[in-house]
């Protein structure tokens, strides 16, 4: 969404050849930083955001007026301590928070790009963000960190730039989107494109936007971010502000009301076409395939120290998929640690206040940093 608020933006002049074959140049990357870069420039952490995240990691997000998406983990004295580290996060290309995306205008025609925006991949996202390192004059990051799609970007980044990070922390992610992952994303995309307002992606030319479709996409996805146990404990069969069921299709149950609310607030901050593009990028992600099916080869050039984290109740990117990355790294004798955190909060655990997770992250980072 283009807004009136001034976003920090880097205009990348260097042409970037995308996986789809097209080349983009003079494109914007919107970013945010926290903490300060030290003299040696060896305290920088690049955080990659997930599907619906943005550059506003912590503190107040000026667009939504809510806390940044990773406020539990990032900030002064937190797991990723901004008193100590210089944190950079940028909006992915294809996104809608200022980086080059489908809501931008074609410079030649001044028309909103919509589905004329090229199909992008995780690889393209990472290659675009690498320009930030040159911008800040950082040769080697202290760490690359991200959960979910952010974790996929972490894996792709260290594969593309093996010498550019000292530590690598992929969280609750996978090296290859499963059929189930693709299926859920397709459900979301179908909800959007089935909304008449979508209009083949040309909705921005009218005043109508496919909010209903986007809200349904968000509702379906939101279920995959939680666990059955978590949902049951929080909502069970509790009714929404009523004594009894109403024999109607109104939101009788609290869970219905909750999902509707999640859908409605999401459409205020997210662009439907961006949702299509970013979910597509996730579906196309298969790091092993880039190396003829041998995932280990993706990491054989790097000497970075890996720390992989999964959550017991995450069924979107379950422990085994995270462990497959550990196995690929062990096969080449890489320095890799792995921990599965006990949590009922599902895939969303990495965004929430899960002390074992936050402690692990903090301990790993701080101990690795003192080994500098």
């Amino acid at each position, binding site marked *: 969404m283009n807004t009136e608020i001034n976003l920090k933006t880097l205009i990348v002049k260097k042409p970037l050849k995308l996986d789809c074959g097209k080349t983009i140049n003079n494109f914007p990357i919107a970013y945010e930083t926290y903490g300060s870069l030290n003299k040696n420039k060896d305290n920088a952490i690049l955080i990659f955001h997930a599907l619906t995240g943005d550059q506003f990691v912590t503190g107040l997000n000026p667009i939504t007026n809510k806390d940044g998406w990773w406020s539990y983990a990032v900030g002064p004295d937190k797991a990723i301590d901004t008193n100590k580290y210089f944190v950079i996060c940028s909006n992915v290309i294809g996104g809608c928070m200022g980086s080059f995306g489908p809501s931008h205008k074609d410079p030649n025609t001044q028309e909103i790009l919509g589905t004329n925006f090229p199909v992008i991949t995780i690889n393209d996202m990472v290659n675009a963000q690498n320009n930030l390192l040159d911008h800040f004059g950082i040769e080697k990051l202290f760490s690359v960190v991200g959960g979910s799609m952010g974790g996929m970007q972490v894996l792709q980044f260290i594969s593309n730039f093996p010498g550019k990070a000292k530590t690598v922390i992929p969280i609750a992610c996978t090296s290859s989107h499963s059929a189930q992952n693709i299926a859920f994303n397709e459900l979301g995309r179908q909800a959007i494109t089935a909304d008449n307002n979508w209009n083949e992606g040309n909705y921005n030319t009218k005043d109508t936007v496919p909010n209903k479709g986007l809200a349904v996409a968000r509702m379906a996805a939101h279920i995959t971010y939680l666990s059955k146990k978590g949902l049951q404990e929080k909502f069970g069969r509790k009714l929404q502000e009523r004594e009894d069921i109403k024999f109607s299709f109104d939101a009788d149950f609290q869970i219905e009301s909750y999902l509707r609310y999640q859908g409605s607030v999401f459409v205020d901050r997210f662009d439907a076409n961006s949702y299509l593009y970013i979910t597509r990028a996730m579906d196309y992600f298969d790091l092993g395939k880039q190396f003829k099916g041998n995932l280990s080869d993706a990491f054989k050039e790097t000497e970075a120290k890996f720390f992989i984290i999964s959550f017991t109740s995450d069924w979107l990117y379950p422990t085994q998929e995270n462990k497959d990355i550990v196995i690929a790294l062990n096969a080449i004798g890489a320095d890799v640690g792995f921990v599965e955190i*006990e949590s009922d909060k599902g895939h969303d655990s990495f965004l929430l206040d899960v002390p074992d997770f936050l402690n692990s992250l903090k301990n790993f980072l701080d*101990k690795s940093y003192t080994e500098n």
Partner: protein
Amino acid sequence: MKNEFKVIADLIEKDKRVLDVGCADGTLMKFLKDNKNINIRGLEISKDKVQKCIAKGLTVIEGNAEKDLSQFPDKSFDYVILSQTLQAFLNPELVINELLRVGNKAIVTIPNFGYWKIRLHLLTKGTMPITKTLPDEWYNTPNLHMCTIKDFVHFVKSRNFKIFKSLALNSENVSLINNSNLGIKNLFADLGIFLIEK
């Protein structure tokens, strides 16, 4: 640090690559890393203990030795350590084979069920022995396959593994085990420490 760990540390030369299987809270790993510049990895099944290792800045993988050793390539470590856990596996033979596949050498320590106090306990009391090394009751012990020093030596020989060093530990005393004193050591040591190779 307990005496057993000092003995194990003395068996390992500086600058080696070592895997500690069942590394617990990482005490031995930390010692080896700090004092012998060992490139050390741990494998540990308990989530709490994994957290303790991470807090010490150690590289640890949460996992189960019976399943997760298979991901390490052949001879990817100079030494693999297994301290007092062999008896707790469903299939100790499989684990020993895995240790010797993954490591050039393995250091295995076992609580000796032939120790005189254990024999005496069973003989006089007629109940399952409880000692400092084996503190649990029969119904809640994690130990499934107890053996004696003699059993272990016989097993290693029957599989044609090489024994580089056999040590008997009794509180503070460490002594060498050889063919002629095996019976005595099997009676007076509460722990056996073996350096073996396939």
